[in-house]
């Protein structure tokens, strides 16, 4: 697997660090890690940077994760990047909403690096 550029979107800076560490523990080689505290910040990051993978929380201020995923359709720098939601919201309706909005995967908090590996690696493999 090639080294990838990841965008991690979560209003908790601690959680962003945990997600990054979990990706590395899962064996994902990261050439660049970009961070954003909500969906609007993430769109601003994507205006300047191309990414290969997006991991996104749902409950965030300003612009939540579902709205952000819906906003990605016209964003060229994210057109090839699978989106995986990482959230405490574990309801079936949230999963359905996330997947129908364009997310490719869903991980519930609390999570293990193994769960990150199971959900993320296949998406990167498909992309490669």
């Amino acid at each position, binding site marked *: 697997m090639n080294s990838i550029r990841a965008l991690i979107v979560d*209003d908790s800076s601690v959680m962003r660090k945990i997600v990054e560490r979990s990706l590395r523990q899962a064996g994902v080689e990261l050439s660049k890690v970009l961070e954003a505290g909500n969906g609007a910040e993430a769109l601003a990051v994507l205006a300047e940077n191309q990414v290969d993978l997006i991991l996104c929380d749902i409950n965030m201020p300003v612009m939540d994760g579902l709205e952000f995923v819906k906003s990605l359709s016209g964003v060229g720098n994210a057109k090839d990047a699978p989106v995986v939601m990482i*959230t405490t919201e*574990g309801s*079936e309706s949230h999963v359905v909403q996330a997947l129908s909005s364009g997310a490719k995967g869903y991980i519930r908090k609390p999570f293990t690096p193994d769960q990150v590996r199971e959900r993320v690696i296949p998406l990167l493999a498909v992309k490669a």
Partner: protein
Amino acid sequence: MSVPSDSVAAENGHQVWLPVLEVAAREVFELMLGCELTTASTPEETDDQLDMTSMVGLAGRLCGVMSIRSSRKAAGLMASKMLGVDPAKVGPETTDAFGEVCNMIAGNFKNKISGLSDGCMLSVPTVITGNDYTLHALADSAGLEVRFLFETMPIVIALQIHS
């Protein structure tokens, strides 16, 4: 673990949720902090040491407040374990980490109860430092509380139920 939300819980005064709350908390600490909580009957006299509180509101089919209380030292240690850094290097991340712990316990708890996962929303966490305050619930409310030792330091996790 999954338990029914309405009838059984109401009949038992929500006490049936107590083991669910305990499991929800244990899982968060094991998976995200890499440590086990020890069940301990810490006396309420030690509550003066608990000078950090994190709260997450629940609204929908269950209305209430989930809270976790600990000392600042314990909260700092939680942050260090979450970040994988030395406790001495943890700074302002402590409140963020402490809020996230409460958020994950609340989410994990509701996701284990049939009917609550879809029908209950969580607020963003609020963290209070200091212990000289009184919580006044606006409705007659039941409460669940579990007490643990986190690396020998007491923590109290509570769910105040409004309806």
